[in-house]
């Protein structure tokens, strides 16, 4: 079904406005959760990326960070559709964004059998450099602050990706220090 994109917003006291300056953001107690679920079709990737971009914009991430977080989400959802659910349109993918004052945590869950991350080939190994695939998870690990994969007891695989806001603060401070 074309319109089978379910979006569920659950807000505590989250305010749909830019969070303002750093001090305000760090001290505020706002938090929220946004969850989307959809059938395993690659055409939904753009929708998820737009949602990710909107959220990171709302959190005042800088342009580069927004781009790389968006790409990490896109790569994770691609993996869930392609490798997890094996393109089975009867299986679903869930993406959840947990917004809190100091971090954005993104969960992507599929209904697949899961995999052992430690067995994935290292894309930087000279023997693997010219492989046409196998870089997605490496990129995600590069762009996000913390990435964990887990096989769920109820079935399916979930990746938890975290981007901390204080890292951005740190880089802002470094940028300011360099500018002085």
């Amino acid at each position, binding site marked *: 079904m074309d319109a089978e994109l379910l979006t569920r917003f659950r807000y505590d006291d989250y305010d749909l406005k830019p969070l303002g300056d750093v001090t305000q953001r760090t001290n505020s107690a706002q938090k929220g959760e946004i969850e989307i679920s959809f059938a395993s079709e690659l055409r939904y990737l753009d929708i998820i990326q737009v949602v990710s971009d909107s959220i990171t914009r709302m959190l005042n991430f800088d342009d580069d960070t927004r*781009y790389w977080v968006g790409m990490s989400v896109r790569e994770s959802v691609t993996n869930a559709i392609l490798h997890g659910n094996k393109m089975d349109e009867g299986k679903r993918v869930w993406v959840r964004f947990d917004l809190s004052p100091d971090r954005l945590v993104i969960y992507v869950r599929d209904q697949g059998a899961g995999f052992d991350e430690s067995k994935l080939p290292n894309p930087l190994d000279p023997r693997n450099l010219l492989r*046409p695939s196998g870089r997605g998870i490496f*990129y995600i690990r590069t762009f996000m602050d913390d990435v964990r994969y887990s096989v769920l007891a109820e079935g399916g695989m979930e990746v938890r990706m975290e981007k901390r806001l204080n890292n951005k603060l740190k880089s802002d401070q470094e940028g300011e220090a360099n500018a002085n």
Partner: protein
Amino acid sequence: MRIDTRTTDGITVLDIHGRITIGEGSVEMRNKLRELLQAGKKDILLNLGDVSYVDSSGIGELVSCYTTVTNQGGRLKLLHLTKKVQELLAITKLLTVFESYEDEKKAIGSFK
């Protein structure tokens, strides 16, 4: 994705427009390369200046293009990498594999 083909000083330049992502562009690029290699055109410059987005599959596609051409005794080089594509290639050590140029004349000249 759209591919425009032109020839400059005997070198085939492919101007790629749009996205190189999962499910988008890979067939077009493979068909175009196959067509060029069959016609004996083995020196190819990929102009990525108008590429708006590349994901890990797109990077894999560039690698596939590279191996396809070099396996046929040809040369494939890159032109006008966007900052983001450059970062993606650098992170996965592929800048050491691809020869890339900012200036088209220099890129064309490098095939001589």
